[in-house]
């Protein structure tokens, strides 16, 4: 599914963010990525969807080394991956429905398919009744669910999320986790960087801990392992 082989990443300013990571994530897994701020979690995630290109090493996604991807090929990698951020990245002037549909419009999906798929995912994230609302009319938790709906509307095989609950109160955070659980139950791989000790400890999923750009722990049913 996703495999990193001795991956290194140093930024243009000389910061060494990822230093020799090798890891394999199987199809259908649910993986938490934990670590102190600045440890390299976001970089690790960004390497997966080719927001960043590794300085060295191979990153295989479905057998293709995405480190070698030409710019022209990146869009087609992105269509197999959903990406969710801490700050939702919704378009403020579009309704919930339009925000989700946007992801399909720009890859030239047919209007019929768009209607069908958008309604399906809005149902999945339990926001059908908010379809005509603007993002500003929603709670933070609801906004993040819209953003998740957008990330999965094209049926990606993997969803990567970078601190998706970072801006949410515990109650809303749990709502989001429920959604990710449901997505994972449907067979989608989920990779999530998080700071939320509570969630990681209770869910008992695979935990990859990163320090100074290196994997220091990889437990099948792990704990957060740091103090809140």
């Amino acid at each position, binding site marked *: 599914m996703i495999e990193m082989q001795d991956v290194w990443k140093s930024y243009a300013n000389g910061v060494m963010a990822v230093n020799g990571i090798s890891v394999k994530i199987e199809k259908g897994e649910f993986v938490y990525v934990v670590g102190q701020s600045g440890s390299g979690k976001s970089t690790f995630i960004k390497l997966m*969807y*080719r*927001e960043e290109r590794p300085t060295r090493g191979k990153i295989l996604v479905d057998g293709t080394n995405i480190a070698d991807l030409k*710019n*022209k090929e*990146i*869009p*087609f*990698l*992105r*269509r197999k991956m959903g*990406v969710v951020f801490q700050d939702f*990245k919704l*378009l403020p002037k579009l309704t919930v429905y339009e925000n989700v549909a*946007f*992801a399909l*419009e*720009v*890859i*030239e999906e047919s*209007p019929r398919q768009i209607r069908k798929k958008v309604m399906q995912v809005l149902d999945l994230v339990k926001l059908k009744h908010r379809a005509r609302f603007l993002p500003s009319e929603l709670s933070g938790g609801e906004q993040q669910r819209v953003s998740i709906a*957008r*990330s999965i509307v*094209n049926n990606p095989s993997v969803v990567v999320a970078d601190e998706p609950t970072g801006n949410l109160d515990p109650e809303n955070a749990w709502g989001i986790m429920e959604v990710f659980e449901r997505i994972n139950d449907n067979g989608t791989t989920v990779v999530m960087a998080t700071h939320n000790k509570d969630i990681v400890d209770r869910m008992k999923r695979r935990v990859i801990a990163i320090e100074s750009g290196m994997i220091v722990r990889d437990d099948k049913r792990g704990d957060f392992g740091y103090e809140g």
Partner: protein
Amino acid sequence: MDMKARTLFRHFKESIKNLGRNGWMTVASISAVAVALMIVGLFLTVMLNLNQIANHIENDVEVRVYIDRTANSQEQDALKKQIQQIKDVKSIKYISRAEGLKELMKDFGKDADVIKPYQGDQNPLNDAFEIKTQKPKQTEAVANKVSKLDNVSDVSYGKGYVKKLFKVVDIARNVGIVLILGLLFTAIFLIANTIKLTIVARSTEIEIMKLVGATNSFVRWPYFLEGLFLGVIGALIPVILLLTAYHELYNYFIRNSYQTYLFIRLIPFSKMSLYLSALLIIIGAVIGVWGSLTSIRKYLRV
């Protein structure tokens, strides 16, 4: 590139929306293109016509003598003899007013229709003699002598126009090219800035598009169209203004100057409108697209 009509329509809508959103920058860019192309167009019109005139005065040895309309054929013959006796006259050829009109119609080409009403009795031209001198220098003296003869209504000759014209054409070309390059550069800069504004305003949107797998060309299309519109609309304004003015000028010459042999030979309106609109619209489109593509390039880094 194959693209669904729906997608093209979407890009079209997006680009129009962008233009509306940056109202005054849009106006500024269009005006810049319009001003630059207005000057290009003016310059072009003048240059092409100067060239046309210069080329038409085949050589400087020709003098045209327009005969008074009241002169009968005996008086015309007498005049011809008198002219033949003037020193330095090499040849003399009679051109009746009907022939003159025919010649004129040939010059007008497609626009000959405007002259049709002047055929037959309505023919406003005079019968004329076309005199050739031995040397260009002699035309002035010959013309002066001829103009003093009886039954001569008017005399026209080269006056060394050709040399002067080519000199003017040369200077105008150099000054014009510098001016035009500067203006075109300004127009491109303004277009690039207008489009940069829309791009900055929509950076989140572009980010999301790239994130969910839109291709670069998909992202680029609306901005490409936006630049194209700015350029083409900017070009249409001077095209309309210049052609309207040229039409008036051209008709003015047809109506009033049929006897001034030198200046009647403006480039026909139909030809000129084709040259001008094609050239200005192409330049407008090119600078528009250029401006837009330079400004989007760096935002499309993945």
